[in-house]
Structures are given as structure tokens and as C-alpha cells.
């Protein structure tokens, strides 16, 4: 057994970011392993210490020890000793990311609170837009002209993709339902299924998803980069309200455009259904007569009303995220992503409400 009461750690060579890890670990083990002995860290043979080595030395001496068992650094180069002396053991004591681990329940609770807060904020935003709409009576011409431009960009240019998606959707539903119905000799009722699904649900839903990805993200990115470039501040100094000037035209455009696109999606969806059902030996005329019996004008209207709601949601979420953009280039990307995700989730939720209300 060693009779020497103190423990000496002799450090040698160059302690740098590369060489420090094993030395740091060993030194801590030694110090922790002898809690009641004073520890001398002999630095006389150190050649070089970089910032990581310095952090190591500080880490060794800042530990809380029993009285009379202090850790002391000896024979350190004077300039390094001077730096080390500027720190007191309490410095960085509350280091770490400041995160405490949350239980599952707490995480769920906080997430719910955040989402609820977001919804309230979004509703407030839509209300502000509505107020702006009534306030801007005198400037309505320019608002509508802007809305027309945006509608062209968001609507006309989205026609090909909406046609493609709508058509494929009709084809897929008719095919899937047809496979099952054929086993029961009920292929003709597939028409009812396709008509109802496309007109009431899927025409509007798929159009909205496409538009959310295409236009919702674009709104968030446009407004976001305008905010980052201080263009919004420039507008405000002219006395122009960004909501009235930038958001309102987008809302109006989308409320009109999404239902229009939905009409197209409905139409080509039914066309897709006809094409598939022809391979199941349902003629065009049979399809037409069955469809007229199966769906009512209210079904089409329901789809269009939903589409208008989806349009409003997409524009409101996109613009809101754009205006809420933080600073920097990455913030714009984050806003665009959040806009797409939030609007698609909200669209599905709204669809759920409609399903319950109209059942």
C-alpha cells in the first residue's frame, strides 16, 4: 500500500483534441477513484496544450472534492495558468443542452398544447384576413387583379398534374372495386361506388393534396423569403398591410381555383372509371344511366364546398407559415415543409368533420 497521501498525475507530451480523449478519461478515473486524496496534476512535462487540453485541465480542477482532497495543477506554463485562473469551478456548471428528458405523457401533452396553440393562431390569422377583406373595399380591384395572377399560376399550371392524378385515381378505384364486385356478379354497382367516391371525396381530396404540395409550399417560400429579405418591412413602411397586400389575393385565388381544379379531377376520374369498367363489360351507356341514378347534384356540390375549404386552408397555412418564417435561408425551407405537412393534416381533419356532418 502506498503511504504517500497524495496522488500525482504526471501529464506528458502534447494534449490536443486528438490525443486528449484517453488521457482525459484516465485522469478522471484516477481522480474519482481516490475521492479522499489530494491530487497533484504535474504539468511540468507538457509540451503543448490546445483548447481541448485546457478544457481537460479545467475539468480536472473544477470537480467538487472532499476538504483536503483538492485537485491542483502544478508547473503549468505561466500563460496557460493565467488562462486557467480566469475560470472558477462554478463556470459552465449548468452546462449541457438544458434539455431534461420528458416522459411520454408529457411529450404528448406538450405536443397537443403546441398543436392546439397553432390552430388558435391560424384561426386568428384567417379572422385577420377576413377583416382585411372588408377593409380593403376601395382597393378591391388591385386585390382581385393580383388574385387572378396567382390563380393563373396556381390553377392553370396545375391542370396537367391534377388531370393525371384524377384520372389514375378513377382507374384505380374502379379496378379495385371491380375485382371484388365481379365475384358477386355486381359489377354494375361499381359505378355507384366510383361516382360517389370520386365526387364526394377523392376528387377534392387528391386535388387539395396536389395543390398543397405545389402551391402551399410555394406561398410559404415566397412570403418567407420576402420576410427574410425585409421586403415585408419595406411594405409596412409604405403603410401597406402584408395581409391585405400579399395574403388576401392568395386566399381569394385559392378559394376559387381549388374547386375549379376539383371539377376537372372529378370529370377525368369518372372517365378513368368508364375506361376500366368497359373491360368488365359495362358499356358507356350503362355507366351513364347507373351514375345518374346513383349520385345527386348535392354530391358534386359537397365535393366543391369541401374543395373551397381545402383551398382556404392551404392558402391560409402557406401564408401564415411564410409570414412566421424565422431568420436565415434554412428558415424558408422549414416554413415550406411545415406548410405542406400542416395543410395536408388539416385537410384530412376537415374531411373527417365533413364526413361526420354529412352522413
Amino acid at each position: 500500500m502506498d503511504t504517500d497521501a497524495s496522488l500525482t498525475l504526471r501529464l506528458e507530451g502534447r494534449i490536443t483534441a486528438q490525443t486528449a480523449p484517453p488521457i482525459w478519461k484516465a485522469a478522471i478515473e484516477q481522480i474519482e477513484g481516490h475521492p479522499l486524496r489530494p491530487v497533484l496534476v504535474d504539468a511540468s512535462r507538457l509540451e503543448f496544450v490546445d483548447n481541448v487540453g485546457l478544457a481537460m485541465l479545467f475539468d480536472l480542477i473544477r470537480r467538487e472534492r472532499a476538504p483536503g482532497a483538492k485537485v491542483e495543477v502544478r508547473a503549468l506554463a505561466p500563460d496557460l495558468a493565467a488562462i486557467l485562473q480566469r475560470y472558477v469551478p462554478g463556470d459552465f456548471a449548468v452546462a449541457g443542452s438544458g434539455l431534461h428528458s420528458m416522459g411520454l405523457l408529457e411529450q404528448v401533452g406538450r405536443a397537443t398544447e403546441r398543436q392546439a396553440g397553432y390552430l388558435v393562431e391560424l384561426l386568428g390569422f384567417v379572422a385577420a384576413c377576413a377583416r382585411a377583406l372588408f377593409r380593403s373595399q376601395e382597393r378591391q380591384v388591385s386585390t382581385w387583379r393580383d388574385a387572378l395572377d396567382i390563380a393563373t399560376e396556381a390553377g392553370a399550371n396545375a391542370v396537367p398534374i391534377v388531370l393525371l392524378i384524377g384520372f389514375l385515381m378513377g382507374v384505380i378505384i374502379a379496378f379495385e372495386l371491380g375485382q371484388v364486385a365481379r365475384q358477386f356478379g355486381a359489377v354494375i354497382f361499381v359505378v355507384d361506388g366510383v361516382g360517389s367516391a370520386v365526387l364526394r371525396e377523392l376528387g377534392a381530396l387528391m386535388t387539395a393534396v396536389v395543390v398543397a404540395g405545389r402551391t402551399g409550399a410555394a406561398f410559404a417560400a415566397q412570403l418567407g423569403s420576402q420576410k427574410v429579405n425585409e421586403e415585408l418591412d419595406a411594405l409596412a413602411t409604405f403603410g401597406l398591410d402584408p395581409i391585405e397586400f400579399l395574403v388576401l389575393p392568395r386566399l381569394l385565388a385559392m378559394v376559387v381555383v381549388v374547386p375549379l381544379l376539383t371539377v376537372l379531377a372529378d370529370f377525368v376520374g369518372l372517365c378513368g372509371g368508364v375506361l376500366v369498367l368497359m373491360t368488365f363489360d359495362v358499356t358507356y351507356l350503362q355507366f351513364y344511366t347507373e351514375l345518374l341514378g346513383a349520385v345527386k347534384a348535392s354530391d358534386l356540390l359537397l365535393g366543391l364546398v369541401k374543395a373551397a375549404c381545402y383551398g382556404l386552408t392551404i392558402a391560409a397555412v402557406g401564408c401564415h407559415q411564410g409570414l412566421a418564417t424565422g431568420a436565415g435561408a434554412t428558415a424558408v425551407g422549414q416554413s415550406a415543409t411545415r406548410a405542406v405537412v400542416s395543410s395536408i393534416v388539416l385537410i384530412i381533419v376537415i374531411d373527417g368533420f365533413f364526413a361526420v356532418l354529412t352522413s
Partner: protein
Amino acid sequence: MTEHLAAKRVTAPAGTPAISVRNLHLSFGARVLLEDASFDVHRGQIVVLLGGSGSGKSSLMKTIIGLHRPTGGDVLIDGESLFQADAAGKVRLQRKLGVMYQGGALFGSLNVLANVRFPLDRFTQLTLEQKNLAVRMLLHELEMDGTETLMPAELSGGMLKRVGIARAMALGCDILLLDEPSAGLDPVTAADLDRTILALRSEFAVTFLIVSHDLQSIFAIADRAIMLDGHARGVIADGVPAFLRDQSSDARVHRFFNRQPDSLRASGER
């Protein structure tokens, strides 16, 4: 009881220049920037690289970092050739150099702490707690306490540069290359940064190679100034800034250090 904790010793022989540029020839296509540039940067020196626009300062800096391959000549880091080394050797040499780019070049998606910790995360075996401690102490040395959780977009120009220096130093680099550290800073902030550079030199024995135009800053911090010239395609002056200002017989150097317009050239000074 004595415990020996030794790190391996890898030091270049004393007196070896930290950076040695040898007969460097640098051209891009038909455009020749440098024809035969040579100079050494010794340990502990603060050397400023200066010259008019288009004189090849930034390209020379990028060559020293190893981002451009020169058309001739070589760059030695601690006596080892950067361009004759194999890929692994080149990376090892490059890692000795810390670089601060003009705007800081911080990663926009990481906060200050994570930005400075980035090289430590990549290249060391330290624990997260150890890395965080090292980063916080480094930020403290650069007078950037309390900014750990800020994102780069929330920092001012001077803070960006400080964090850029911290990141360049994080891996224990004691050779720092700074690209226009005082560009875009107000005089007070620029002077603060100069003070920081001097402090780093005296406390951490950091060697600096700085590209700069800022005469005040050059006179305040530089031990040596190396002046490049676009027409001469090489080094036209190498010496103590105050000496170059007062004693240089070269008209181009004299003009630069005394902030005289180029139009004097027309009045027959040359």
C-alpha cells in the same frame, strides 16, 4: 503514488516554418495569377497577405488550404509538402489549418454550440460533455458567452466572425487563416477582433495568416506584411508594415500603405 499520462510527441523540428510557400505558380486556364511566389510564415507570427483586387490573394489562400492545385511549386505545412502527400496525408495536413471564411461560413442549420463542436464531433473520441466544455471555454475566450443556443442567422457580422474563428480553432489548430476578418465591421468591432487575434496569439501561440485590406488593422496586429501585385504576378514586398509604409522604395507599396490613389501613376511618379 504517481500516474503517468503521456501523449505521443509529434513535433516538427524547431524553426520549421508553419507555412512555407515555395516558388508557387498559379494559373486558371490562360490567366496567370502568380508566377514565382515564395514566402514563409513562422510559428507565432501574424502575417498579413495584402494586395489590390485581382492580385491573387484569395486564390493563394485557397491554394494554401489545398482547395486549388497549383500549376507549379509547392506549399509546405510544418515542413511537409501538401501537394506531394497522398490523400490521407493531405487531409492530415489540412487539419492542422483552421480557416475562417469572410462571412464565417457557419452551418445555417446548426446553432453556435453545434457549429463550433462540429469538427470535434467528427474527428475526436471525446464525450459530449467534454466537447461541450471545450467549446464553451473557447467561446468564453472569444468573448462569446451566452450565444451557444443562437442560430447563425441571429448573429451580427462580428459575432459570425468570432464563431468562425472558434470553429476554426476547435480542433486545436494553431495555424489560422483568416479571410478579410475586418471586412464589413464597424471600427470598434474590428478593433475588438484585432485585440482577440493578438490575445489568441499570446495565449494559445496561434500563428495567423490573414488576408486583409484594412490598413489600421494591419498596422495594429501584423508582424509582417506580404504584398502581392496583379501585374508583377508575385510578391512585391515582404516586411514590417510600418517599415514598408515609411521606407519602401517601391511606388506601388508606398501608394498602398499611404492610401494614395492610383492616378499618381499618371503624374510620372513611376
